[in-house]
């Protein structure tokens, strides 16, 4: 039986190892300076890169974070500090549902809500879709983290004559900032890797981004477009894009691990 458990654990490692090895093997040859600095070459010409998609992804995730991070944290604070209220129960249920909504459905929803009335794909619409994906991840992590803070800490703050709001923000939340940050990073990593919700919202293009109201390229969508194309050179670039994306997500996940282990121990200022 013990052997079986060991085998199961080893089997679980295999897909990740294979994916990594494969992407590394296929993508590394195409990663070049041009990849990070050039926009895609016109059809028929060789060379080119995915600089526009990199900037696009940064823009989309950055915009999404501006809304998703504060909203998610405030949601989590509300769920943890007002856990018993009816609104909190409804919010918690909604966030759970939101986590399980397929991301393409969120894309379609934003398409109907923003893209159609605004008569065009835009970074705004893409960011809105990504923010919706980030919200439940950040909200739930924040709630879990804050629930770990014992009530006698809150009471100590209240007993000093500090208002409940300041106790929550400056003592409870600030004291857990490292752990809350891990939730934020996980959400950012997830959003950076999403392609489905961007297909009908930010769409894509082959040029430098020209404004937040314009179709905006992103790494995952660009990979998709290149991977289904019939050109060998584009396939190469798609692999390179996949390698960059996986590396970014990997680094983000690794940094949450480090943050988690640091925030677990007592931190000096």
């Amino acid at each position, binding site marked *: 039986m013990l052997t079986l458990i060991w085998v199961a654990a080893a089997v679980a490692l295999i897909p990740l190892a294979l994916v990594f090895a494969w992407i590394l093997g296929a993508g590394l040859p195409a990663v070049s300076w041009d990849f990070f600095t050039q926009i895609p070459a016109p059809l028929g010409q060789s060379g080119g890169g995915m600089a526009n998609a990199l900037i696009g992804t940064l823009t989309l995730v950055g915009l999404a974070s501006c809304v998703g991070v504060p909203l998610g944290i405030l949601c989590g604070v509300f769920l943890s500090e007002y856990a018993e209220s009816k609104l909190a129960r409804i919010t918690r249920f909604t966030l759970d549902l939101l986590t399980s909504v397929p991301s393409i459905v969120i894309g379609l929803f934003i398409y109907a809500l923003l893209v159609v009335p605004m008569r065009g794909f835009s970074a705004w619409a893409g960011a809105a879709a990504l923010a919706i994906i980030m919200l439940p991840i950040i909200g739930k992590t924040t709630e879990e983290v804050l629930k770990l*803070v014992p009530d*006698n800490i809150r009471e100590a703050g209240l*007993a000093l004559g500090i208002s409940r709001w300041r106790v929550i923000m400056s003592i409870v939340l600030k*004291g857990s900032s490292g752990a809350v940050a891990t939730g934020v990073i996980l959400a950012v990593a997830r959003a950076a890797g999403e392609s489905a919700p961007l297909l009908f919202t930010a769409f894509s293009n082959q040029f430098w981004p020209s404004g937040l109201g314009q179709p905006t390229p992103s790494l995952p969508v660009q990979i998709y477009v290149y991977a289904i194309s019939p050109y060998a050179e584009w396939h190469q670039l798609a692999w390179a894009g996949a390698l960059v994306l996986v590396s970014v997500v990997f680094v983000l996940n690794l940094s949450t691990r480090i943050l988690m282990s640091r925030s677990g121990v*007592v931190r000096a200022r």
Partner: protein
Amino acid sequence: MSETKTDDKAQAKPAAATPVEPLLVVENLFAYYTAEPSVKNVSLDVRPNEVVALIGPSGCGKSTFIRCINRLHEEIPGTKVQGRVRLAGTDIYGPDVDPVAIRAHVGMVFQKPNPFPSMTIFDNVASGLLLRGGTKRRDVKDIVEDSLKKAALWDEVKDKLSAPGLSLSGGQQQRLCIARTLAVKPKLILMDEPTSALDPISTSRIEELISEMKKFITIMIVTHNMQQASRISDRTGFFLLGDLVEFGPTWQIFNKPKDDRTDQYISGRFG
């Protein structure tokens, strides 16, 4: 040691009888978690610079009672308080009174030392001042030093004020919590079994500290430890099932209690 202290109390008895304007007056206080009151019709008064001990078996309402004095009881959803509590003449349950403001005048030290996590020793003591606002930055440093001295912790921490509060030992953490409370300059400090989580040496340091602090502050302490009550308090109240059975000078409670139930409890026949 305890002999001489008992003598002090005996001598202090006539002095205590002279009328002093009480700092705290509680009248007909009821406190509820459910329909059944946990504190039933309790009235008592506390004089300035006095140490009042509240004793009684677990779950008899002592802690609930003191949590009504700083209006912390009402922070638990579904709870209710009835009756009057006057602090230095102000009805703290008055219609225009902000509980947040009251709590700056009535400090509290909890059973388990609870320094704020991820705050330094300095920040822990300064937290009340900084998060309440209204204190100048340069004054904060002096108040922190003064509070740590009053809590008999300054000499142990003066070289590591930027170390985490949680890096201290349990007894030191509790004195840190006392310093944190002193920093906002309350008139009265409530202590909810402050030594029950501490070792005997840390306990005796806290007891010494209480006797020192009496010079400039008034203290109401809940304790399970009857020896502790007799060592440090001027007057003692005995709680049983939510009632304040007897309240009087400590020497009297422990030597000549008027109520049979008090007599049975202090002689260890129940509880």
